[in-house]
């Protein structure tokens, strides 16, 4: 069961790689967060821990509902061209993604996580989600992708934390959720401001400061 969820998590990440438009990217993020919720919820059910239940509720509240809703709202408000502006086209990106996943697997095995059990698969998925998030940030033009890319990386880190050390201490976990939410909102505000001042949100055209 957990294996299937890990697979779905990775598949939803690949879905974001081939997305060409902003709404598709946000939808992909919503799916990914939902599978993250399922993974945490099953872990909570198995270990019967109240704290993990709370964390999974937090995921559904913050990452599945609030952040995507807020991002959708910003997209509607700024009303610009919804294309992501790909530096690397989606076919090539899709071809690169398995390479990231393979090296994540190699890294996970070499670091000695779980010795071939489900844990090492989980760590490999986590690393590939992190690296794909970073790849998306650098290979897309629109400022939105940077915001979503950071959120994807954060999801990967969360998966990594819950698969290697059973998550962070509860209090720190909640604080990090709060922090992620605030950072998404603040980045959204800055996307809004960039659009107002520059009348576009292409980060490759932000080149006033040099040297």
């Amino acid at each position, binding site marked *: 069961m957990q294996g299937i969820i890990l697979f779905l998590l990775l598949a939803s990440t690949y879905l974001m790689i081939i997305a060409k438009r902003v709404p598709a990217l946000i939808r992909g993020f919503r799916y990914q967060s939902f599978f993250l919720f399922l993974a945490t919820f099953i872990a909570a059910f198995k270990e019967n821990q109240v704290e993990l239940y709370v964390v999974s509720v937090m995921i559904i509240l913050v990452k599945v509902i609030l952040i995507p809703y807020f991002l959708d709202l910003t997209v509607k408000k700024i009303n610009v061209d919804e294309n992501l502006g790909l530096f690397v086209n989606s076919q090539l990106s899709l071809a690169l993604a398995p390479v990231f996943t393979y090296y994540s697997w190699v890294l996970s095995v070499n670091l000695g996580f779980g010795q071939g059990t489900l844990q090492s698969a989980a760590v490999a998925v986590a690393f590939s989600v992190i690296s794909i998030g970073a790849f998306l940030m650098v290979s897309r033009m629109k400022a939105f992708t940077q915001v979503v890319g950071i959120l994807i990386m954060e999801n990967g*880190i969360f998966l990594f934390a819950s698969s*290697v050390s059973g998550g962070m201490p509860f209090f720190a976990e909640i604080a990090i959720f709060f922090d992620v939410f605030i950072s998404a909102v603040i980045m959204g505000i*800055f996307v809004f401001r960039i659009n107002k001042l520059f009348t576009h949100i292409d980060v490759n055209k932000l080149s*006033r*400061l040099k040297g």
Partner: protein
Amino acid sequence: MVMFIILGIPLLLAAGAFFIKRERLFGMINCFGYFLVLCASIFIFKEAVSTGNIKALANFIYLDILSAVFILVISVVAFAAALYSIAYISKDIKENIISRRKAGFYYLLFNLFCFSMFCVPAVNNLGMLWVAIEMTTLISAFLVGFYNSKESVEAAWKYIIICSVGIAFALLGTILFSYAFSISGLSKSLNWSDMMPVAHVLDKNILKIAFIFVLVGYGTKAGLAPMHTWLPDAHSQAIAPISALLSGVLLKTAVYAILRFGIILIKSGEMAYFTHLMILFGVISLAISSGFILIQKDLKRLLAYSSIEHIGIIAIGFGLGSPLAIGGAILHIFNHAVTKSLMFFGAGNIVSAYKKHNMNSIRGVIKALPFTGILMLLGMFALTGFPPFSIFISEIMIITAAFAKGSYIIAFLMLFFLSVIFGAFIFYFGKMFFGNLPKGMEKSGEPLSGKFAFLFLFILICGLGAVMVFKYKDLLWIAQRLLQG
């Protein structure tokens, strides 16, 4: 508990910024509040030196000498910035650059920013440390983009994105540290005070990988080259008092985070690894910053690159690891904070008088702004490590330690880059400060509260240079205690 005063006053002032609409009055209250914080932090420093460590709130707050040093540095710069803000903000309102409402917003963000920086050295939990550092980024992004011009919003965007990605790697490193802790069969915890005593039993290979992530992550925030690219933009576009806070203390809070993890690594017996990494990044920072300083045209960017240089020196100091070098690095953190704040305040005055950043079109500062000009010229000599001032003492301590350790190449590289930077500074400041005034410029008055801020910092710059000659044994004792936790 004195620590609650330090954390509480900025929060109270942040709330007060909502209600008190007269910015001049509020500026004075703000300044008084930070004076109290400064007194409290001196008290905490004394207590930490005499008792070793202080815990509170069920181990949530943990202070030792290392955190006390950083709290002291933050409160000194915050007090000076609060003092300088009074005149700076009133002037901006008078010239219709910002509105009254925006001034209230400024004080709200200023206080929240200081609060989040005070949280960094106070918390015990390494996860909360991460949250506090991310909070400093999020709040100060608004202060960088405060004037809402194209340049400042671009700088704020770069700042928030690059630092958030960097810090995501630091979170990964933090998780690896907690993994190393949990596989050694100990109970789940991220408290530094729990991890430190058992550092020697943790898995060294995992700690090494984790430290790389932490160094790259928090190093981005600290402005270590080559992860420094956000720094010159953010520092040059922020408002002058905030530039001082960013460069003087925000970078240091990230250095503090690196040190917290570094101490665990050193305790586990990997001193050489820590030394190599810190010195590598330190030397790269010195090299890159000296290159950019040579070709710089913008006054505030020049100062920002100089911050990268000094962070490099601090990294080398901690990397060398002998008590002399660590004492030098601690002293350098303080000296750089006060000197660079003075320089950024001066740059703020110059920019608001001349209305431009470009050093080629700024001439005759000594004639236009005599007080700022003279103090900034002295500050320039202090910043580049000229003898009577305090930065000279800390730099010579680090270089002596490098020679004593036999690392001649590092000492040579440091001296070489420092002399290049010294030459570049003399060249640019000589051109800017002397010569005739540009047409249409007249000698302008300077506000009193700004002058007080300059004098306060200048006394610290000169004073420490003199005092340290007699007190260096105490400093070495503190440095020795630091790495023991």
